[in-house]
């Protein structure tokens, strides 16, 4: 065996303990408390998604009182989310379905854990509940061309 200084043994022990603690913390919060990451939802054809299916007429749909789904299309040139504005009453739970018709985009909704890559060919799904009134911008977080910095929308909670 190799010689390891006693301080270094302590240091290694401390490192291993930290790694176990960190892994447990993210595992428990992720799989038991539901603070989860995006995962596969559906595959679509980016060349036809704007013409047929749920993304042909994007926007908010009410499933039940205070329970909504929102279909959003991310598009470059002009750089826009469609729709750009969504309004829901306070206390609503909204499930977002977002896809791209051209290049890669991002979708980050301020004030929530919603932060997802938007890829042509994939549907990204995220859910959040809005208990505070206000305006929350959702912004494109992936470079998608020279208009990238102008690509954003607004969620209004009333």
């Amino acid at each position, binding site marked *: 065996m190799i010689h390891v200084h006693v301080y270094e043994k302590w240091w290694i022990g401390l490192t291993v303990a*930290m790694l176990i603690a960190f*892994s447990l913390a993210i595992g428990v919060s992720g*799989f038991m408390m539901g603070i*989860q990451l995006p995962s*596969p939802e559906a595959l679509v054809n980016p060349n036809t998604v704007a013409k047929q299916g749920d993304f042909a007429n994007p926007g908010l749909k009410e499933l039940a009182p205070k329970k909504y789904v929102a279909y959003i299309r991310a598009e*470059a040139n002009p750089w826009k989310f469609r729709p750009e504005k969504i309004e829901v009453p306070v206390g609503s739970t909204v499930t977002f379905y977002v896809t791209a018709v051209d*290049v890669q985009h991002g979708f980050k909704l301020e004030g929530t854990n919603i932060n997802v890559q938007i890829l042509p060919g994939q549907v990204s799904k995220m859910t959040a509940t809005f208990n505070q009134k206000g305006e929350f911008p959702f912004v494109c*977080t992936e470079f998608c061309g020279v208009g990238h910095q102008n690509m954003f929308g607004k969620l209004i909670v009333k």
Partner: protein
Amino acid sequence: MNTFAVERKIAGWHIFVAIFALSLGILFGPLQAWEHMGWNTYPALQAVGLQSYYQGLTLHGVLNALVWTTFFITGFLTYVVAKSLNRGMTFPKLSWAAFFVMVIGLVMAAIPLLLNLATVLYTMYPPLQAPWYYYLGLTLVVVGSWMSGWSMLLTWNAWRKDNKGATTPFLALASLISMVLWQICTLGIASEILVLILPWSLGLVPGIDVQLSRTLFWFTGHPLVYFWLLPAYVSWYGMMPKQAGGKLFSEPLARLAFWLFLLLSTPLGFHHQYVDPGIPEGWKFLHAVLTLSVFFPSMLTAFNVVASLENGGRARGGTGLLMWIRSLPWGDPSFTAQSLAMIVFAFGGVGGVINASYNVNLVIHNTAWVPGHFHTTVGTGVTLTFIGILYWLIPHFTGKALWGRKWALWQAWLWTIGVAIFSQGLHRLGLLGAPRRTMLGVATDNYGTPEWLFPRLMTGLGGTIMLISFCVFLLVVIKTMRNKETAQVEMPVAEALHHETIPAWLNNWQPWLVGAVVLILIAYGPMLVQSIAQLQMTSPGFNGLW
């Protein structure tokens, strides 16, 4: 005595191209920082052919993160392997061929970059589409770097035959591990370009699978950072203790750290894809745990390197719990630059644990936090270390004394102060929700808040200080090259503190290579099979968006 004239020449040319690329690439850095502050210089720069912020950003990323690092590393390690084995390259022509392949690749990639035909950022995410020769050029840079690695491995193989049963010296082993890690992990980007991107950018197939191309990119994209980092560790472990007047605290554990990097660096790329829609949570979590496990060799390094420096500080007469730090050679620019790089890198490591942490990452993913992070790691931990290495290497190669020791010291401190302010600004902006890779000066008017103002100013100020620091570095290099004063500067080689026999498992490639391949198969195999089974070659290319 072998003077390694051939290896000096090979390494010298690599390093010349590296510094040239860095000098050009770094010029764009402050332009980005100033834009964040609200001063957009790009419209004025259209007169010199620079079309947009994003063209500048692409040049900055490619030249600094890919070209400067790869050329410096292949050149530096070629020389270190030769010196450490006390043996010239067995096939110097292979090393030269490698260099020319890399240069041809660089020129092929540089032309479309400068003509604003390849403004796809250094991640070149499809379906943004650059001309096919841009991708081919980048491929040649990688292939050339492989050939450099083969030349080092063949030299080591010849050494081994003449030294049967001998333990490979630490500096050579650590350098070879860095190059082998690179060979393994670049299989991802090589298959992305050769199988997916080239046929598609040549128009042979109409569409590309965007999700799969991202997975293959990040197969290489994260181990890439260890390819940058390990040559810095070569210096921290194998050279800096000598510069500090001490010895390497634990050579066996230094070797163990390198083997663990070889084992663990690749099967963890999904942490760059935590928010990708096409990868299930379970696989992301597995990669999260594997990413955290790389924290282990990093912590081994933190202890061992600091203990070695303490050994130096005490050998120089330092005493007390911490007062030995004052006895370190703070008047030596090479030592100081690398020590400061280490301190900044430690903060980068802590931030890296946050990035790695699965769902905590949601707060900062794709935000300005991320460039804030990697300017403390590759931008300083690695780059300032390489600059520190150059402060002994240029005099060592040229026989000329380092010009302006005080200027060089100022350079290191200014860089550290600059990056501290700059990265603070970007980390804060990220926490406030500002996206990365974005003209934040413009975005502020769209969706920013007044809270963004102060960190935007920090970014601009810090970036300016870093530019000044870099100008000082160039001054020192040019003045040293023209210096009439001569000096005999040796390559620092640290001795081990304890002369222990290195056990066989720390001198044997097989278990670590097999382990690395097995881990890659477990972490990537099933997802890759599934992606190929449901291949979606549907995305046409877009080349008119910039």
